[in-house]
């Protein structure tokens, strides 16, 4: 049989300080860029405004397009190439248009369409997609996205606390929060547009990373029940090693699907695929280097008196944990 990294005995946890350094550097880099440019590239779903995707019959230059819009009084619109140089997205804030006509969010789109038709002639330009969101809806969607994220933390934390134990739950939760923060840093560095779909991708990353953590913790839970005479530090390392082939296989298949999306599924879904691709790495990383060390740290702060299961194999539980404290701090 074909085997990858089978029966390994790598001391993963030993490198946790390096890991912390790497992830901290990445987060500082990502969040630090807020100091230079504090703007997150939010989609109009969150900011309110108008977005149009237009397709031209012939290739069009961004500068010329901007000139055409400026001349018609639609200033400050954000123009981005979308795939080929025949397709562009135009984003305009409603507020910038307020002065002229107060007919509502949809009028900006009509204005842009009219201008483009005048400039490039009818039939030369086609609106393939247009969205207009009022500011109030934008606020609500932003609020809902935040609620969704917090609620998913809460719900999964409660579930893990029931199925495992609060120490595991807390460690998994911190690992998940780490994923969210690094993903935000990644979005910032890549300057990806944060839309509702990207929020969905972040939640999927949360779920995926949680999966990984659960798989490892499940092993830890099982090994603890066996009551081996070893420290939690060792148990954790063993669990990571034992689940290593699974991790590699699953990440490989998930990455394959993600890359297929990234390359073949088109421009609209690309930010989603980017977030997912990044999430596979950060999720794997955090399951080993955030959830693991955090669990050890929590154990040291609040050592367990009795085992996780109230079952049979809890007799030797106290001493391994205490030893784990010692090893973890070395």
């Amino acid at each position, binding site marked *: 049989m074909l085997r990858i990294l089978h029966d390994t005995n790598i001391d993963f946890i030993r490198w946790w300080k390096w890991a912390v350094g790497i992830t901290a550097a990445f987060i500082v880099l990502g969040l630090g860029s807020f100091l230079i440019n504090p703007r997150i590239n939010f989609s109009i779903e969150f900011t309110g405004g108008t977005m149009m995707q237009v397709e031209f019959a012939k290739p069009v230059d961004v500068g010329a397009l901007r000139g055409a819009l400026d001349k018609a009084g639609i200033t400050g619109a954000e123009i981005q190439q979308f795939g080929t140089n025949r397709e562009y997205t135009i984003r305009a804030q409603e507020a910038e248009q307020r002065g002229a006509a107060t007919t509502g969010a949809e009028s900006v789109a009509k204005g842009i369409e009219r201008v483009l038709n005048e400039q490039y002639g009818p039939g030369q330009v086609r609106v393939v997609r247009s969205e207009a969101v009022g500011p109030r809806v934008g606020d609500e969607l932003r609020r809902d996205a935040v609620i969704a994220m917090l609620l*998913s933390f809460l719900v999964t934390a409660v579930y893990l606390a029931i199925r495992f134990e609060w120490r595991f739950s807390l460690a998994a939760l911190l690992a998940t929060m780490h994923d969210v923060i690094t993903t935000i840093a990644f979005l910032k560095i890549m300057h990806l547009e944060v839309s509702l779909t990207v929020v969905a991708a972040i939640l999927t990353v949360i779920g995926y990373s949680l999966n990984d953590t659960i798989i490892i913790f499940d092993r830890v839970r099982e090994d603890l029940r066996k009551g081996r005479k070893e420290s939690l530090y060792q148990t954790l390392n063993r669990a990571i090693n034992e689940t290593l082939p699974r991790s590699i296989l699953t990440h490989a*298949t998930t990455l394959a699907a993600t890359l297929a999306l990234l390359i073949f599924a088109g421009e*609209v879904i690309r930010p989603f695929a980017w977030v997912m691709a990044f999430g596979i790495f950060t999720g794997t990383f955090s399951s080993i280097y955030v959830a693991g060390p955090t669990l050890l740290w929590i154990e040291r702060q609040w050592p367990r008196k009795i085992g996780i299961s109230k079952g049979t194999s809890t007799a030797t539980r106290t001493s391994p944990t205490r030893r784990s404290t010692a090893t973890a701090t070395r």
Partner: protein
Amino acid sequence: MTLKYRILVIIGLIIASGVALFPRNVKERVKGPNGFVYDTVRRVPLKRGLDLKGGMHLALEVDESKGPVANKADALDKALTVVRTRIDQFGVSEPVVQKSGDDRIIVELPGIDDPQRAQEVVQKSAFLQFQITDKTQALEKVLPRLDAIVKTSGTTVAANTPANGTAAAQAPTPAPSTDLFTTDTAAKRPADSAKTDSAKTDTAAVAPSTAGGFSKLIQQGQMPGEYFVADSDMPTLESYLSNPAVQAALPPGKVIRFGSDSSQLANRLYRTMYVLDAKPIITGENLVDAKPNTSPTEGTIVEFQFNNEGGRKFRNETSRHIKDYMAIVLDDRVMGRPPIIQSAIGSRGQITMGGRNLQAASDLALVLRAGSLPTPLKIAEIRQIGASLGQDSINKGITAGIIAIVLVVGIMTIYYRFSGLLSVAALVLYVLFTMATLAGFGAALTLPGLAGFVLSIGIAVDANVLIFERIREELSHGKTVRTAVDEGFKHAMTAIVDSNVATALTAAVLYQYGTGPVRGFAVTLLAGIAASMVSSIFVVRTFYMIWLSRSRNTQTLSI
């Protein structure tokens, strides 16, 4: 459960999925040679979301920009009924009209090819009134006062033109530009009334007047209460009318309404302005039917009918107003030239549409039938996706899906060989079950949903990977194949259940707080989790059982 029952369950699931997905006749709006027509097509009953099908999504809110609305919740409920009636008659397949939260109406119109028209039909207030034009010279009586007001506050009012942003912001400008009938001529009048009056007056020469600030803008028309205003003077006049002092000085019991269109007199464009009795003789409330028609003499018309009560009232009122002119006012805009009332009018009448086409007439008839909106609605959110973009997304999504499947199948069969093949067979069932679940629950497949589905192909094998790795461990501990398989499934189960439940909980949260496409993503994710639990645990287990029962004394397992 014995092997026999397991196989039966799997066959049952496959049959059920097949039934759920079997192509059936669906009534659908398809593009024909003359625009969209209803047709029965045979296709897989899998619903596509608006972002894949192309179409229009609208979120409407109560518009309070022109004054507060007293009972918002109640008004919205009534508006919902009206919008639903209008949309039902508008003719799109599977439209959605629903309340979202307690202050918003969501309208989804799949495959719409004319978003502008759809928006008008939804948003039009359609408040129909019949009002008698003023014959008491009320405006003339107050003109000196108006001129005086304009003179004293002349500087400030003059600055009140829309050209000046800050001043315009202080005075609420009337909103003629938002009116839906700003284009063609739309003369309308009840049928029974005199035909003599309809189209003869446009020749009147309008002598320039030299009176004061206000009165120089307007000129007396031919009928009582009718005035002409040059198009170029409209902004000034509107800014005067928005002045509170002017408003206070206007004749009591009368209202000023403008005509719906401009007409050309002596080489200049003029708008008609009417002074009307504020109290309408009848409103569109009693209207029971309206339908578009073409008449050889008058072009496109909308014929309408009042109910008995309305007809009686209309007859009484018109008989009291013989020889008066009656303006037909739709959404505060006078439609066409008010006709003279020759004799009492009964329950039927008609509105001539002037140069507008039959579709405009049928849209007007539609909104008249559905009744007026109790409150103006504004658009809070609008998304419109072209059908070609949707189809393009589907094609690309399917390409990505096929490539993902090929890659995953490759990885699984190379790494796990025979067992990998079992999981690939399970993967095929996974795709089938997920599609069937979506079709069965009538959930729509959206673009993020499609992406989520492709992604889930990669994640779906995770359960099998866990199980196979476990079986390998058990085998390396020297267990027999049969025990190793049993133990492998047993031990991998807790991790699979816990991780899937955690993901399902996240998906449920996403469903609760997501909108539109994202909600579609959550649904696909949930369906995928359910399907993968069945396919990778139950189905693969059964495959192993079949294989083990066929080779009883097997010593090795290809894994």
